[in-house]
């Protein structure tokens, strides 16, 4: 494993609404007049990364759109925990249609707004990883290919959480889900390419693609802001730990997301029109194992017998990300 050079970072730069910052640089969350798009009282689990991510994403998007925004939501945890009739946690104009069609609905919304002369109203669509990389993938690719004026957000918690933690095309290798259980010779999810939708999105050469996590909410907000400053199809893939599905402690959601990036397991980058334009360098590189041990879904890699063979393969995948995106600063 390569090591990281010494770098000085301002302590507290992760903090929201940092008072040391100029007002215009402050977080959308720090603003008293924030949209509060996903307001309190919803039924997400404690420590839900998706709820956290969605709140930051939508408030930042609402700020950028000056409140002129419509949101389309796929079926999944985010939809179910937010709108048990007759209640709703959404303070944005919000439409849920189906599990697999959010990108296409958003396309229609954008077309409808144009046709009715409301060109100023922006469209944000969002869904879980299942909705995005699996069942809604054809619609997503179609929306990209036509370059429809939609910002699509995928909240990736690596499985079909709403239906009880089944495997999705975004479930990482070796992870236990209820349909890839920790039994047999290769416990947990199979090894393979997985479906790397951020890279597939880049291949569509759309104006903007970025990944982010709920560990760096300022970065997440900044990317939403940047995306909202552009038109055409834009894609943001956000890693959102799920305490229930990952078998992790509610208090560890942000920590686990940080370890995912600091280990290279989840690369954070931006791309514009088919080219990677920036990567978030690893600050304090950690072995993938540190990321794994906080999660019950990888427990079978450590007990009853330690599976170094599998852990090594996961490390190799992280190393590949590090090499592909240049996540580690060369020591000079």
């Amino acid at each position, binding site marked *: 494993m390569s090591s990281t050079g010494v770098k000085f970072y301002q302590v507290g730069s992760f903090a929201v609404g940092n008072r040391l910052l100029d007002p215009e640089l402050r977080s959308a969350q720090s603003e008293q007049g924030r949209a509060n798009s996903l307001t309190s009282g919803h039924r997400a689990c404690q420590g839900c990364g998706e709820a956290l991510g969605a709140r930051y994403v939508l408030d930042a998007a609402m700020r950028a759109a000056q*409140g*002129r*925004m*419509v949101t*389309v*939501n796929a079926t999944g945890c985010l*939809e*179910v925990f937010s*709108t*048990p*009739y*007759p209640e*709703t946690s*959404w*303070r*944005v*104009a*919000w*439409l*849920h*249609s*189906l599990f*697999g*069609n959010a990108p*296409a*609905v*958003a*396309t*229609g*919304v*954008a*077309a*409808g*707004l*144009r*046709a*009715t002369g*409301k060109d100023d*109203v922006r469209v944000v669509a969002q869904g879980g990883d299942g909705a995005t990389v699996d069942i809604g993938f*054809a*619609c997503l*690719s*179609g929306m990209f*290919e*036509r370059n*429809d004026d939609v910002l699509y957000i995928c909240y990736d918690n690596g499985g079909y959480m709403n239906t009880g933690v089944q495997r999705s095309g975004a479930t990482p290798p070796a992870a236990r889900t209820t349909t890839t259980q920790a039994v047999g010779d290769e416990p947990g999810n199979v090894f393979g390419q997985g479906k790397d939708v951020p890279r597939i999105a880049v291949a569509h050469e759309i104006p903007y693609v970025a990944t982010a996590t709920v560990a760096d909410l300022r970065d997440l907000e900044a990317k939403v802001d940047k995306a909202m400053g552009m038109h055409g199809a834009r894609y943001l893939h956000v890693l959102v730990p799920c305490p229930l599905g990952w078998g992790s402690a509610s208090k560890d959601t942000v920590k686990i997301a940080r370890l995912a990036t600091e280990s290279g397991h989840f690369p954070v980058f931006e791309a514009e029109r088919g080219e990677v334009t920036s990567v978030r360098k690893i600050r304090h590189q950690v072995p993938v194992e540190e990321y794994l041990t906080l999660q019950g879904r990888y427990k079978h890699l450590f007990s009853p017998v330690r599976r170094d063979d599998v852990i090594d393969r996961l490390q190799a995948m992280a190393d590949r990300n590090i090499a592909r995106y240049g996540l580690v600063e060369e020591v000079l």
Partner: protein
Amino acid sequence: MLQQVEGSKAVAVAVAASRPQVICAYPISPQTHIVEELSRMVKSGELRGCEYVNMESEFAAMSGVIGASAVGARSYTATASQGLLYMVEAVYNASGMGLPIVMTVANRAIGAPINIWNDHGDAMSQRDSGWIQLYATSNQEAADMHVQAFKIAEELSVPVMVCMDGFVLTHATERVDVLEQDAVDAFLPPYSPRQLLDPDDPVSIGSMVGPEAFTEVRYLAHMRQLEALDVIPRVAAEFAAQFGRDSGGLLRSYRTDGAETIVIALGSVFGTLQDVIDAERADGVSVGLLGVTSFRPFPYEATHAAVQGARRVVVIERALAVGAGGIVAGDVRIALTGTEISQRTVIAGLGGRPITTTSLREMLGRAVRDELPALTFLDLDTGVVDRELRRLHPVDRFADVLPQT
């Protein structure tokens, strides 16, 4: 203006004159000519104020018009057969959310075996989807009914499917009074949505509803369809008053007065049947014809009234409920409740098989002599099915139920 045009073109012109704001579509025969023409009209600037989106599937096409309709745009799509089945989940979703989308279904059979020709199996599969379903008897009526469909849909906030026989109508060139913009504008007011996704007044649409209110939501959808039983004929009457011809409505009666036998049918076979009825009447046979224009909602009371005095009805269906028989027949049976009228079902024209005057007259002859079985497959090749049944069942236990046509 009277023109010699293809049915698809007449429909495209009627749709365009209805000033749709968003069209999302995906091609499938025999719907293609309609959407090709509309896409051309949008691209050339002939149809202004409209977004035409080439979607990646029918599922996406219906999803697109759901989104467009939800932000208050008048929205249209068209499909057929496999395409309709491919969009089913979204079809139900559109009606569940009460979005007044209009869709043409260029009726075509459903595979396997794959078959591009006409029957009603596609639209009939969406019988309970919550959409209003209107069946056109001619290209004139198909064109006219699209303009009416937008009015009905938007008044009730219910989506409407206009069904026209694939190829038989879509690809037939005949004389049609092509609808003109001024006249359609006078008939159809701009769309004012009942509910709207609007940043100025944000609402959540498409919430999860549990047992505490789901029945009520469904009940209200049912009531809106029943309301359509008043709205559909009223809109048809308004249309007749302005355009001077009968198109649409719930039912269409032809020479049913005093008829002993009444044939009930949907779609373009109505024209063939009119000729058959004329010929039979000329021969002194007491027959009449009832066309069902509105299949959903089904006009039970109007049907009951329309067949009063008859001794028997023969329902001709271009679709089959495998294992049951007729589909429309079930509704007719409900409509006949409390009468002594006997009912026969004839499955005809599946997968594009021509329904000929000769076969219809032969069948009617048997019907009036009370020789028609409860369920008949018109022009069935008994040699083929007989051979196959015997091959499948060497022990000849099906011999006595083989059709005797």
